């Protein structure tokens, strides 16, 4: 992704996927729930954006909006989503269908639930192919399905193509899911927690596979996860979401080494690390994610934030901070009132979670 001309945004409006001021609201009997609030991001071809956040932070909801997968009668979506230059908010169902699974595809977590239990894997892949290639024969579709299963590393694809999903192992199911997502060579692939239901060794294989495929297909990839390890491995850029809003957005390495928002600190502090100093502590973020029915005033994170005392007055509780560049250049955006987040991070957070790294970081800063 290239640098943007306006300092307050990382948006590159020429990117393949451009999301601007996206707001997704669900009316409920208890009042509207704003699951995504004024979210903007962009992903270019060949780039990977990692969207990170807790359950209910709006990360899945926002990406489902990209494919128009919400029930439009129960959802109010405003803002702009452009896929390959085409505006999809307000697009009718048939226009949306041409994009889904074709130029933009999605792979879901828990492939056992996400694949139909009653249809053979090959038939489900072929179905995804045929719907966008109406002239393809059954045999073409089957050949394509076998080819894709082979491509994602399923052994004996010509035999396994006739298996049912329950006859596959967890890792193989996720591979089949990926094969289905990529069967029409999409320019945008959204992976919604693709490794959540898998064990660690399989996770690594799947992530490798996704990276290989991205290189091969040169697609824009969004990877939704709550696992910062996955993000560190996969993403070029990271967007951290909290209570439906973007709270930090920047290049992956920059954001993970110099996070400027206390919520991101909290996420970093709560990852266990096998290679870490045994004195390092695992610090959970106190409290629970806020109810979106009645979000906190000011900064949504302030009730759980340990650093509100460093902000003058009651600013955190009264005023929503804007998403602005912090002290580390215009491409690293954060939504926080803290004036010197980098210092606070090094002094208070890093010292707790990785004491051995404090020295390093200070050198780096000097």
């Amino acid at each position, binding site marked *: 992704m290239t640098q943007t001309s306006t300092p307050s945004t990382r948006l590159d409006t020429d990117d393949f996927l451009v999301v601007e001021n996206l707001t997704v609201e669900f009316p409920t009997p208890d009042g509207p729930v704003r699951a995504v609030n004024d979210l903007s991001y962009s992903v270019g071809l060949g780039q990977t954006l990692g969207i990170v956040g807790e359950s209910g932070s709006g990360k899945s909801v926002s990406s489902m909006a990209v*494919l128009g997968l919400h029930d439009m009668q129960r959802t109010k979506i405003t803002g702009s989503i452009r896929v390959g230059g085409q505006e999809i908010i307000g697009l009718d169902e048939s226009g949306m*269908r041409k994009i*889904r699974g074709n130029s933009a595809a999605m792979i*879901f977590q828990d492939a056992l639930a*996400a694949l139909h*239990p*009653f249809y053979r894997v090959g038939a489900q892949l072929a179905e995804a192919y045929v719907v966008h290639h109406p002239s393809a024969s059954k045999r073409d579709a089957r050949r394509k399905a076998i080819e894709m299963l082979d491509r994602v590393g399923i052994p004996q694809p010509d035999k396994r193509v006739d298996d049912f999903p329950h006859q596959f192992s967890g890792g193989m199911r996720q591979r089949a899911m990926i094969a289905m997502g990529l069967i029409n060579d999409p320019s945008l692939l959204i992976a919604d927690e693709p490794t959540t239901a898998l064990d660690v060794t399989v996770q690594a294989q799947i992530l490798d596979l996704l990276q290989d495929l991205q290189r091969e297909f040169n697609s824009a990839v969004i990877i939704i996860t709550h696992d910062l390890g996955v993000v560190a491995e996969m993403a070029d850029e990271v967007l951290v979401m909290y209570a439906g809003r973007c709270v930090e957005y920047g290049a992956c390495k920059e954001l993970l080494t110099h996070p400027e928002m206390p919520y991101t600190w909290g996420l970093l502090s709560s990852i266990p690390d096998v290679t870490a100093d045994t004195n390092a502590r695992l610090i959970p973020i106190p409290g629970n994610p806020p109810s979106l029915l009645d979000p906190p005033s000011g900064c949504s994170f302030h009730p759980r934030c340990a650093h509100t005392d460093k902000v003058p007055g009651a600013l955190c509780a009264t005023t929503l901070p804007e998403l602005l560049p912090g002290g580390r250049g215009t491409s690293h955006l954060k939504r926080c009132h803290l004036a010197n987040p980098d210092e606070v991070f090094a002094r208070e957070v890093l010292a707790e979670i990785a004491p051995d790294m404090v020295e390093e970081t200070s050198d780096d800063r000097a």
Partner: protein
Amino acid sequence: MFAYIVKRLLAGLVVVVLISMAVFALFWFGPESPARPVCESKTGGKCTEERLANFEESLGYNNPIYEEYGKYVKGVFVGRELTVGTQKIDCDAPCLGYSFKNNTLVWDDLVKRMPATVSVAAGGAFLYLALGIPIGVAAARRRGSLTDKVLVSTFLVVSSVPYYLFALLAWIYCTLVFEIPVLGSSGYTPFTDNPWKWATGLLLPWLCLGLFGCTQYTRYTRGAMVEALSEDYIRTAKAKGLPASTVVYRHGLRSALVPVVTVFGIDLGVLLAGTIFTEKIFEIQGIGLWGLNAVGAKDLQVVAATALFGAVVMVVSNLLVDLVYSVLDPRVRLS
């Protein structure tokens, strides 16, 4: 698969045998001698103690129960010779005994009455599905809307009326009050005699059964559909770019049908075993009405035969349900 079917059929046979024993024993040990109704009917109500004793002797009720049950079972498989009063009747296998009331062999009556019951059951069962499934799907797709609420509450009202009342009212209004031409001519004509009359005569019974029974199929289908449509694989199907109808029918309904088919198999069995109310109200000489009359007349052999027939139908339909289930859901393995 084959071994499974054989195993299930053997288990079913045990069920049928137990039921036949139970029915046999119920009459044998009843408060009244099973020979009395025969005696009353044969002597025109002048059944003296002496005559009763003669009947008991000739009908074999003085023998031990297991001996008589043995004869009964033997009759089913190889046939037997029956003694009715003074005459001897050859009863070929499968021999289910002799109806003193109708003066016929029970098996012959069963065969004769089966087409009527099958006709009623088939039409009713067809309407269960033909009405219940589409309405259920429609309600599920519009879940929470006014259409859904109207459908659900209407069907709740219909299904809370007792069926015999529902059918009786339908009959009264269609034939006596409004004299609707086609619906008014209910009654059974064999299909082979006149297919048109067969269909028109059964139309009202079919509609009664179908309209009443479809309410529960609407509920099952709606529930199963609502559940299916909220599954992850439906979201996957949408994300592939499939048209809404493909998503709803090929992916949603395909899953929702499994529990519906299970219930349907059992219901079909119940219908085939005799649609008592329907046959009674519309005067259709089927197995249900036959059994009902036999209970009134204390015609032991006929009652035993209808119970046996019902048991066989239920065993077979349960087996069929399980077989169909394994076809519908590839995760089910029969063993």
